[in-house]
């Protein structure tokens, strides 16, 4: 049996993301989380998916200004993570099915985890 504790990270591009997530969803994977890290190139976003305890992480690196497709159309529960990234880092998403417009987290200043702000 393979080690279920192993960290598997697969790089994806912004154009591949939606179809990749769609394929995983059809394969029965569930969204575990999505998180953002501020890196010199812009944002590094990790989407994690699980199927029968096997974890797969998709890593997407995008410039700060780039708008990426929301995955809430495929997996609705992603709204929690997309709104979090939007509020704390200023990541821009297209077609979010539930968009709090920067008010999901009641922070005293916009995008506090983006060092520019």
């Amino acid at each position, binding site marked *: 049996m393979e080690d279920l504790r192993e*960290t598997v990270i697969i790089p994806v591009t912004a154009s591949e993301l939606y179809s990749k997530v769609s394929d995983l969803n059809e394969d029965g994977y*569930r969204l575990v989380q999505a*998180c953002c890290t501020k890196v010199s190139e812009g944002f590094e976003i990790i989407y994690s998916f699980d199927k029968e305890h096997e974890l797969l992480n998709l890593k997407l690196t995008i410039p700060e200004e780039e708008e990426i497709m929301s995955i809430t159309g495929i997996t*609705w*529960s992603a709204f929690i993570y997309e709104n979090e990234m939007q509020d704390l880092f200023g990541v821009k998403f297209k077609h979010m099915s539930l968009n709090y417009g920067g008010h999901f*987290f009641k922070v005293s200043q916009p995008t506090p985890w983006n060092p520019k702000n």
Partner: protein
Amino acid sequence: MGKRTIIPFGPQHPVLPEPVHLDLVIEDETVVEAIPSIGFIHRGLEKLVEKKEYTEMVYVIERICGICSFGHGWGYCLSVEGVMGVEIPERANYLRTIWHELSRMHSHLLWLGLLADGFGFESLFMHCWRIREKVLDIFEKTTGGRVIFSVCKVGGVRKDIDEATLKEISSVVDGMKKELKELADVFLEDYSVKNRLCGVGYLSKEDAAELAAVGPMARASGLKQDMRLLGHGVYDKLGFEPCIETAGDSYARCKVRIREVFQSIDLIIKAIEMIPDGDISVPVKGNVPANECVVRLEQPRGEAFYYAKGADSKFLERMRVRTPTNQNIPAMVKTLQGCDLADVPMLILTIDPCISCTER
């Protein structure tokens, strides 16, 4: 179709010890939609990783939550150990497992008490918390703390438990079984309790999977999903198998947690019988390499996710903690659709929400 009204629920509400807000769209007395709102007390603890060295950060991570503080410390240490390639001694693994299962017992007993309080059974609430006190006493005796233990560190654990104390723990938890059985009979057999729980807040197996529910919420809907199967700690040596129920209602969620309390007792007793002698930690020195590691642990409330990214420095570049309540919010919203307004507080309780965790 009746007239639609929006009722704001929270952030301050008698059933909520912590702030979360729901806009409940109701028709007559039935909830047709619930829109959640969080972030009232977001602390940004993950961001502190830029100012605290990796050895100090464990104290911050433990303070994410007062109930599953040990588990958060363990998850953090596992992720940093993963980045640094550190193997910890077997005795430390056993000790971590014992403390983690004790945490599960006290978390579930706390929840059972809150549930009893939620449906107005005050004496049941008091008995749950009275029994829970014995677990807190074990924590105090073995770690010095009742809420935050600070025994987990990168490379192992800080404190050992001597043979006599281990035997005492085994006998105390074994002795709790009789009292717990009496409590379990009330929760699972009393007709007035069943009236409040059976058939309320149904979440199908398909919805639980689709909405990515975790922990007892998922297991009560028939999903065999428990991160203790991943191989962290010594669960594989203890013959662990998750507790699954299939009814998907509030009663099933209660039953899963009650079964898990008894299961935790058995796991603790078995771990104490099997614990080997030896060191409790290995020395860990140097910077955290530029590497990354993902770890998932089964907290009492469900799967918690930890992501550590090193930067060849004493400071991590990123530490991400995704707590179980975060993940269960979409499933909670689903169970609220179609419920009676009077059942809303009960349904919110059945996901065992921890806003402190969510607002890490």
